[in-house]
């Protein structure tokens, strides 16, 4: 009796297993058949950072811009020159007043027409909701003169207003669309948001009522993969058609794969070392000069970055006019500079002052792994010269820089993201700026930055920017190391996906798939 019972149970279980397996395979076939059909007009891209929401007037603006769903009044060209986008043309009425002529026939994704009032509301919301945008634009009043004309008045002369209006923080949206809870915010881009899952994916599809040339692809799925290795493997396995931010180490591996192509562009990013000007060790200019002179920039460029980038002379990439600085020569020797500051070498070959050995804390962070590698190189170079440095990796670098004690820190910054030097110089070097995290203070530099803001003549402004950088360089508050290249990789079937110096425009209407 018992055996009979057992046998039936076994058969039943086996039948269940077979059924389950058959069920799975059938479903997979269906899925692959479906995706094959869709594949013809869709593409999948892998980006590294996911927005936390779709409100563009927040810290998430960049990621929304990159999805191709949103637009700003001004667009920056490959050469970082401001070009018309939602604004057809513009003119400066007087020192602080600008008049914009808007594109006609622009419709938000919810079907509402974009007029000057809608743009005004959007800009006003951008300023009210985000301090960064407010500082960037310095707007006093916005006025809708007619349906297609917008007048903007700034609180002071803001020479960088036009290029700053390309900042993703100023994305134009239908403000009312935020009230509705069952639909996504309405932008004006060539793609409309279909589905958003935080930290996972953003699916956008072609917007049929787009005012310009319509998108070539029906649908683009953006997957957010924060780990660089996973992103790369997704590309290698064919899960995605293009991936951003590829480690330079993999360029060679990818080159061997015939189906894949590596895209690079000079970036506007700068990897730098910050000196804490309040720390007892780095208060003295001599010590900062010593560390600066010991950084093996070219060696790092050739090995760690594998030649993908340019050695930095100043904070801005030399592809920019205001980034073309002359290299400063330091003639004094390490020993000379250290001794000048009262340091002497002890028996172990380490520098010592008042009985205390030179020992500094060097902060780095894991989100950009190459920075830690660069820090380790600097650490070993300093140790060779008798300076002990302890590396500390912190999860949130910005918080640690403000709240804790440190001597040195690795940092990476898009120094000219709007194509103008104003933002970086103002936020990093003005005495009272919240982002002046290493406590650099110079009245001369403050005054020069103010003067630059008031200078509308581009040539004069560039000259001033260079002068400011030279003035700052005298004090060595930072050591600029390299401008790393932007590296993307794509499947060769994907066309139009480009690596650009500007990091705003990733997905766009002209991307197509063979």
């Amino acid at each position, binding site marked *: 009796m018992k055996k009979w019972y057992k046998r039936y149970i076994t058969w039943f279980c086996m039948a269940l297993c077979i059924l389950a397996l058959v069920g799975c395979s059938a479903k997979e076939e269906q899925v692959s058949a479906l995706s094959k059909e869709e594949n013809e007009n869709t593409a999948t891209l892998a980006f590294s950072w996911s927005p936390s929401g779709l409100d563009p007037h927040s810290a998430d603006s960049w990621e929304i811009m990159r999805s191709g769903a949103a637009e700003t009044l001004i667009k920056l060209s490959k050469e970082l020159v401001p070009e018309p986008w939602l604004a057809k043309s513009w003119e400066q009425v007087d020192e602080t007043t600008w008049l914009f002529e808007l594109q006609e026939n622009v419709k938000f994704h919810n079907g509402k027409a974009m007029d000057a009032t809608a743009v005004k509301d959007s800009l006003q919301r951008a300023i009210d909701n985000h301090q960064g945008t407010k500082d960037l634009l310095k707007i006093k009043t916005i006025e809708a003169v007619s349906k297609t004309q917008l007048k903007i008045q700034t609180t002071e002369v803001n020479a960088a207003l036009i290029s700053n209006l390309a900042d993703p923080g100023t994305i134009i949206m239908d403000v009312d669309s935020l009230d509705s809870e069952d639909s996504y915010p309405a932008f004006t881009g060539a793609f409309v948001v279909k589905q958003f899952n935080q930290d996972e994916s953003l699916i956008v599809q072609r917007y049929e009522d787009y005012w310009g040339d319509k998108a070539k692809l029906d649908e683009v799925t953006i997957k957010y993969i924060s780990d660089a290795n996973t992103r790369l493997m997704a590309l290698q396995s064919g899960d995605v058609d293009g991936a951003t931010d590829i480690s330079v*180490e993999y360029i060679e*591996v990818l080159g061997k794969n015939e189906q894949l192509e590596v895209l690079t562009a000079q970036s506007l990013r700068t990897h730098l070392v910050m000196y804490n000007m309040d720390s007892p060790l780095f208060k003295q200019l001599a010590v900062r000069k010593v560390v600066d002179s010991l950084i093996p920039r070219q*060696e790092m460029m050739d090995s760690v970055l594998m030649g993908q980038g340019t050695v930095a002379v100043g904070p801005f990439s030399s592809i920019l006019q205001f980034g073309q600085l002359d290299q400063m020569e330091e003639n004094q020797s390490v020993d000379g500079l250290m001794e000048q500051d009262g340091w002497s070498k002890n028996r172990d070959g380490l520098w010592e002052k008042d009985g205390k050995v030179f020992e500094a804390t060097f902060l780095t962070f894991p989100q950009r792994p190459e920075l830690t*590698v660069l820090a380790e190189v600097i650490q*070993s170079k300093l140790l060779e010269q008798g300076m002990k440095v302890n*590396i500390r*990796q*912190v999860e949130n670098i910005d918080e640690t820089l403000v709240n804790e004690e440190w001597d040195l820190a690795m940092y990476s910054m898009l120094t000219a993201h709007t194509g103008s030097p104003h933002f970086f110089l103002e936020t990093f070097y003005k005495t009272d700026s919240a982002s002046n995290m290493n406590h650099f203070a110079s009245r001369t530099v403050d005054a020069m930055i103010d003067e630059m803001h008031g200078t509308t003549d581009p040539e004069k402004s560039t000259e001033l920017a260079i002068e400011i950088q030279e003035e700052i360089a005298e004090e060595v508050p930072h050591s600029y190391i390299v401008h790393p290249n932007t590296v993307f990789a794509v499947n060769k079937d994907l066309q139009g996906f480009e690596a650009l110096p500007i990091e705003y425009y990733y997905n766009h209407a002209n991307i197509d798939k063979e």
Partner: protein
Amino acid sequence: MKLKRLEQLNTGLLAGLVILLGIFLAGLLAPWIAPHDPLAVNLASRLQSPSWTYPFGTDHLGRCILSRILYGIRISASSAFIILFLTMLIGLPIALLTGSVRGRTDNLMMRFIDSTLAIPDIVLTIAIVGLLGPGLVNMIFAIVLVRWASYVRFIRSLVLKIFQEDYILSAKMAGNSHFRILRRYVLPEIKMPILVFGALDLGKIVLNIAGLSFLGLGSQPPTPEWGAMLNDATDYFQISPYVMIFPGLAIVLFVLACQLVSEKLGELRYDFR
């Protein structure tokens, strides 16, 4: 008697002990046997394949992987021993006390331990290191803080069982003090199971340390720690697999040896019963 025991030692235990001893000797003698300075950065010879000069190849900063693994023993293995020692130091007295005294203290202690054991230990460790900030010392502190509870639970169960034996009752009736009973009749009895448990746990602790360092919570660069070496290697394993294989093998070897010793010790215990 001792010789007889040695004869009966099986090859498994012997192999495990030899591997462990070898690893510790290598760690101890690292400054003399390591072919290079484990911290010396040499960008000109980065990511090299194994050769005579670099038997295990070089990492992304041109540092000798063999030398780093040898010096890594000092960090990984000695931290594991420190952790084991500290957890024992906390766990053993508490377990002896609660197991032998029972009553309300025991009850209270056990409920507290239950609540710590309810949270997966790696999650709790990560949370504590996260609060204290990454670093080797903080990591050791966090692991000890999480691990002692399981020791108390294990040792207490042994003590409980022994206290139900008749000879303990006899000892009590003979007028032995509580402390003397613990020292003379309980400790010798639980020595072996604790050794088995400890040996097994040593392997787990090394994995734990490596895991946390892999997440960047343990030792800070450029300290040559096995887990941290694996973490460094993640960006390069497609182009130069050696950077990942050798530190990985070192961890496997150590954990395997610990498991062998623990398992064979356990068998021995029953043989000698």
